[in-house]
Structure formats: structure tokens, C-alpha cells
């Protein structure tokens, strides 16, 4: 009886450990496959040139248009998300601090929003665009992606703000500051590492999302100069190049995938380093 118990425990611990380590293996596997496959086609032309004539038939050029377009969209959307999201998160943690029920209801609601798929935002952005008579453009892409990342921004920032001790808040009010001063000068500073994490997380989500910009941002070989011009994006560049029957173009899709993966990994590592650096100076 005892033996059976011990064997059962050994067996299940072994399986659990195996599953856990296999996740690390899968991550390494994905990254390795992408890097090995795309490394041959990766060169400075890919990063520094826009597509020339006949690029999609194996001609020369690169995906600079998509890299810049993606950065524009992600930066613009993150800015909008900061402008709307940060005050909302602070509001949730300052003005509503005495109403736990309301706070929890809003959090619950935002959590549910997080799960809405990006294709729905894309379809909605598209109908909005038609409604206002716009064409597929940088602006439409930015607005759609902003809608997508606002709930992420608010919830991530809020998660950190909600751990700030109430005493700090009360001390600030006791010294005579107004509520908004408490929010922007005390809580924002104390929650700054959370802010950095929230910004980088939403930026990463914005730069990697394909389904929402598929309808709204369009696709072009040029670098957009104005907000009403269409913009290419990196995920879509990968997707379109991969659909080509020509092997060289497909190889370039893999090289573009390396660029995108590199950007995402940099953001992810950067978020960790930055949030650690800023939380060192915090009160605890």
C-alpha cells in the first residue's frame, strides 16, 4: 500500500516536472527554428531598404517599410493608450479607493475585455473607418490597435497600483494635497515600474498584432509620411511574403520573422531590466 502511494507520487511528480521543462524546450525550439530558417536570408538590405520593383518576385529590397510602419502604429497606439489608460488606472486607485465593490466590478469587466480577439477589433475598426469615410490608413490602424491595448494597459498598471499601501495615499492627503495631486505625483511615481511594464507590454502587443491591422492599416511599399496614408506592418509583411510560391520570398518571410521575434524579445527583456531598476528606488 505504502509502496503504491510512493510510486504514484514519484510518477506524477515526474510527469509534472516533464511538462514544465517541456515548456522551456518548446520556447527554445520555436526561437531556434525561426532563427535557423531565416538566418540565411537576413542581411542589412532587409532591415535598411524598402521593397524595390519586383521585390515580391525575388528582386532586391527589404522590409524597412513594414518595420517603420509597425513602429509608427505601435508607438501611436501606445501613446493614445497612455493618455486614456493611465488616468483611468489612477482614477480606479485614488478616487474609487473607498468603493471596493465598484473597483472590483470595473476590474472584472476589464479582465473580460482582455479576452476579446483582435479580429473583432479589426472588424469594428473597419466599420468605423467606413462610417467616417476614411480609407485604410495609418490613423485607422493606430486607433484600432489603441482600442485593443487600452484594457491591457489599464489592468497591468492597475495591478501594480493596487499593491501600493493605503498609508502612503493617506499621508499624501494629510499633507494637504488634492486627490489628483496624490494620483499623479505620489501614486504615479510609486507605481512607475508598473507603468513601464504596462507600456512595454502593450507596445509589444501592438507591434505583433496582425488581425487588427489587416483591415485598417492597409499595405504599401512606401514609408508613410502622413496619417492618412496606408502603412505596411511587419506581421502582415511576414504573412504576405509567406504566401508567395517563390522560395526566395519565403526565405525573406523567415528573415522578417527573425526581426519581429528580435523586437519582441528585446521588449520583453527590457521590461524586466527597467522595472527592476526603477523599483530599487521605491519606498517599500
Amino acid at each position, binding site marked *: 500500500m505504502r509502496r503504491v502511494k510512493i510510486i504514484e507520487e514519484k510518477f506524477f511528480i515526474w510527469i509534472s*516536472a516533464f511538462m514544465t521543462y517541456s515548456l522551456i524546450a518548446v520556447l527554445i525550439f520555436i526561437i531556434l527554428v525561426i532563427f535557423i530558417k531565416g538566418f540565411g536570408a537576413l542581411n542589412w538590405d532587409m532591415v535598411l531598404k524598402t521593397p524595390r520593383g519586383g521585390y515580391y518576385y525575388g528582386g532586391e529590397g527589404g522590409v524597412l517599410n513594414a518595420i517603420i510602419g509597425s513602429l509608427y502604429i505601435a508607438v501611436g497606439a501606445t501613446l493614445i493608450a497612455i493618455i486614456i489608460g493611465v488616468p483611468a488606472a489612477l482614477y480606479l486607485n485614488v478616487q474609487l479607493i473607498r468603493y471596493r465593490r465598484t473597483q472590483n466590478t470595473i476590474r472584472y469587466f476589464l479582465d473580460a475585455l482582455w479576452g476579446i480577439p483582435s479580429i473583432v477589433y479589426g472588424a469594428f475598426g473597419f466599420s468605423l473607418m467606413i462610417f467616417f469615410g476614411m480609407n485604410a490608413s495609418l490613423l485607422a490602424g493606430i486607433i484600432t490597435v489603441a482600442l485593443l491595448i487600452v484594457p491591457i494597459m489599464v489592468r497591468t498598471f492597475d495591478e501594480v497600483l493596487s499593491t501600493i499601501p493605503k498609508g502612503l495615499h493617506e499621508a499624501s492627503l494629510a499633507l494637504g494635497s488634492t486627490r489628483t495631486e496624490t494620483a499623479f505625483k505620489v501614486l504615479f511615481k510609486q507605481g512607475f515600474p508598473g507603468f513601464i511594464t504596462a507600456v512595454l507590454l502593450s507596445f509589444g502587443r501592438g507591434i505583433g498584432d496582425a488581425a487588427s491591422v489587416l483591415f485598417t492599416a492597409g499595405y504599401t511599399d512606401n514609408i508613410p509620411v502622413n496619417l492618412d496614408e496606408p502603412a505596411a506592418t511587419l506581421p502582415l509583411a511576414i*504573412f504576405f511574403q509567406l504566401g508567395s510560391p517563390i522560395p526566395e520570398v519565403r526565405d525573406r518571410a523567415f528573415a522578417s520573422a527573425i526581426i519581429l521575434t528580435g523586437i519582441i524579445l528585446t521588449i520583453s527583456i527590457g521590461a524586466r531590466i527597467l522595472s527592476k531598476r526603477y523599483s530599487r528606488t521605491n519606498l517599500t
Partner: protein
Amino acid sequence: MQIRRIFLDKVNGFWMVFSMITILIIPFIIGVGLYLKAAPLFENQSLLKLIFSSSWAPSTGEFGFWPFITGSLYVTLLSFLFTAPVCLFAAIYLTQFSSPGLIRVMHPVIDVLAGLPSVIYGVWGILVIVPFVSDYAAPFFGTSSSGYSVLSGGIVLAVMCIPYTLNMLIEVFNTVPNGLKEASLSLGATMWESVKHVVIRGNYPGIISAYGLGIAKAFGETIAVMMVVGNMVNTSGNPFEAAYPLPALIANNYGEMLSIPMYNAALMFAAFLLFIIILMINLFFRYLIHKTKRQ
């Protein structure tokens, strides 16, 4: 000075309320907007017919979403079969057995897996999973397959959803009070028995919610699935054949939808359907999780 402060307080206060309200009404605007766009479709077809009919002929105005809905469900369920055990065991190991060092390593691993864009998963699926299915998995079961199949979609989707579900499960398991587990251990149960009876059994609602949210996430995933699933209507139920999920339908046809009457409305109806289904699942299971947390 005093006036300036009060003025700033008012302006900032207004801005905060305004942004909070904006965020809260966005989902309603999305829902209503999509519904209005889809409304022309209801004029000559009943809702039930739209959902349960399986004839799809946009040029004659026939829109039956059933094959696409079943396609989505099929891929999602298959991915769930792969996700569920991996997430459960990994979450148990991480919260109960592992060393602090492993947790320090696993946090970034899960974050990066969750942060990788779906296109990257799609590329990986095309490079690895599709050839695997066509060269090894299909011959093993005695059939042939191009590789672009429900099975490939399920596998890629499973890998994408693992970090999401796993995070949720870890959160759920962390709420188990240590005292309960210690009580079980002190009565002579082994560690695994305590986990089985206290951590798993005591957390049924939490575990089911985490799985439910993972399924909702899988149901709406677009690009990665679209790249490996083949995008052809399949009613045979064979996992080695292609399927056509609902999000892929929207993404594939946006180009031509303005040229055919009602096509636009039909695709917006598909988006509306996705929105409502996923929002409902999310609201339900989030509610369960919030409730268990409060206890």
C-alpha cells in the same frame, strides 16, 4: 497659487473620469456598431437559419455559418485536449514542487511565450507542425494529408494558449491556503495526495474557469490558425483534413466583401457572433474566478 491648484485638480479630475468612462463604454460601442452593421442580414433571414444553415453562397445571398462555427469549435476542442493536461501538471509543479530557481526561470519563459506574436506561431507551425502532420502523423494513422489540417491548427493553437491558461491556473493555485495542505500532510497523506485532494479538488471552479478562458482565447485566434488550418470547408470530421474557422473567414474575405451586397453584413455578423460568444464566456468564467478569490 491656490486657484491654480484647484483648477488643475478640476481639469485632471475631469480627464480621469472621462477616460474611465470612455474605456467602459468602448465594448458597448463595439457591440452596437457591429450589430448595426450586421442588421441588414436579418431582414430576409432568421437568426436560427443564419447560424444553423450550412449553405454558403455569397453571390446568391445565402449565408449559413454552421460549417465555420463547427470548424472553429473543432480546432478549439482539439487544442484544448493538448492544453489541458500540460497546463494542469505544469501549474501543479510550479506552485507545489518546484524550487525558487526554476520559478525565476519560468516566469520570463511564460511571459515570452505569451508575448510572441501569432504570426510567429504561424510561421513555426508551417515550418514544423505542417510537415510533421503530413510526413509522420498522417501515415502513422494510415491516411494521407497535406499537413494543412485541423490537427495542425489544434497543435499550434495549443502552444499559443498554454501560457495564457497556465498563468491563470498558477494564480488560482496560489490562493490555496497553506494551512489546508499542511493539515492534509500532517494526517499522513503524501505530497501528491494532498495536491490531488486539497489543491485540485478544492479548486474545481477555478480550474474550470481557467480552462474556459483558455478556450475562449483559442476560439478567437486568427492569424496563426489561418496559416496552418487549410481554410477549406470540411464536414467529414477527419482531423487530417482542412477546416475553415470563423475568424479565418473574416480575415480572408475582407478584400472582396464590399463588392457583393450583404457580404459585408455577413462578415460583420461573424465578428459580432465572435464578440458575443467570447464576451459571454469571459464574463461567466471571470465571475467564477473573482468569486473564488474573494473566499
